[in-house]
């Protein structure tokens, strides 16, 4: 169970949002909507613990995420605005390094994870030579290596083509139907099939 209580975020003199409360159970998706600059990314960063909220707390299974940080991070995968790919490493090298960063992973070969996101033949291309959409696909491939139940995704399908988006929707649906949780922001309307989707609007 993932819970946010009375979160408030202040940037400079602006109050981006205040009194954000929600609870997500296993098997639910939370889609965060809002205009540009409404604080979606700031909210996600607070939920991961990268940023501190002005007030409020975030709980993972009833424990504040700052208190038992390690077990929270073992259960979390975060994909931010930036892809987190090192420019001079190839797609597969980047993915291998990401796997080591995880607390635990499944035994799926890195090669296969890249195939699943449609990057067969691009394994050994350096990240800076890939197109924006291909880079995003390498980043999304991290999801399939991971066994973490909680996914926090910031605009995951930016620059991804139509086929990629529908594959992504499938991945999310499968994850959630297997008892995972997803929190994501997006400007596109995504269809997660049978998965239960909640939504939160920031104004």
């Amino acid at each position: 169970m993932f819970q946010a209580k009375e979160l408030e975020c202040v940037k400079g003199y602006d109050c981006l949002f205040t009194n954000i409360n929600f609870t997500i159970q296993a098997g639910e998706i939370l889609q965060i909507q809002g205009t540009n600059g409404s604080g979606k990314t700031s909210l996600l960063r607070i939920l991961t613990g990268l940023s501190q909220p002005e007030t409020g707390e975030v709980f993972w299974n009833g424990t504040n995420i700052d208190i038992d940080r390690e077990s929270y991070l073992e259960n979390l995968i975060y994909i931010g605005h930036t892809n987190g790919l090192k420019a001079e490493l190839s797609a597969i090298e980047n993915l291998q390094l990401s796997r080591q960063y995880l607390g635990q992973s499944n035994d799926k070969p890195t090669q296969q994870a890249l195939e699943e996101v449609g990057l067969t033949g691009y394994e050994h291309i350096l990240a800076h030579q890939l197109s924006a959409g291909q880079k995003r696909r390498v980043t999304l491939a991290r999801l399939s290596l991971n066994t973490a139940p909680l996914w926090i995704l910031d605009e995951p399908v930016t620059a991804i083509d139509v086929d990629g988006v529908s594959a992504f929707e499938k991945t999310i649906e499968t994850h959630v139907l297997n008892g995972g949780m997803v929190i994501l922001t997006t400007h596109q309307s995504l269809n997660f099939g049978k998965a239960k989707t909640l939504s939160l609007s920031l104004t």
Partner: protein
Amino acid sequence: MMLKQSLSQAFLAELHADLRLAYRNKSALFNPLMFFIMVAVLFAFGVGPESTVLSKLAPGVIWVAALLSSLLALDHLFREDYENGSLEQLILSPHASSALILAKIIVHWLVTGLPLILISPFIAMMMQLPGQAYGTMLLSLLLGTPALSLIGAVGVGLTAGIKRSGLLLSLLVIPLFIPVLIFGASAVQASTIGLSASGQLYLLAAFSLLSLLFTPFATSAAIKISLN
């Protein structure tokens, strides 16, 4: 099946990846080294070929050049990783981030500090450093430059989020570099006149060991502040 990733595996993977990156991006590797060589060469030209003057200046010049070129190299330590988001992923890894950061600092020293030490005998030759001081010079650089990389990392961590932070970084770390400079140069100085330099060398070793103990934690905290 689930694979549990151990910290030592992650540490080695980070080490490996960073070494590979350094190999593929050689300009970052050569710039500080070129700077080191140029300072020494220009100094020799500027002061003139008189060997008594040069050899008197040599310990100080070699150490100042080494210090400035480590400072120049520092900027690359976290800059790219901050911009491409992989620093964020490192901090969000359940492994101790200080250990992964230490791996990055070790690689940074290996690719910027170590070449500097290897080239230093040639610089010493140019600066007419007396023969009996070569050993001490190598040892003092070997013991002192790790402290520069480690202490510098804290400053880089703090300024990672700031664009064009070069000046701020210098202001932050140069005061902390000064003790290393004083004892490094004085070790070489002592051995040029035939005195024992062991006191200074022990102190340099102590600086490096102490920074090895504390700076990875401080750097990790500094990066968390920068990312906030």
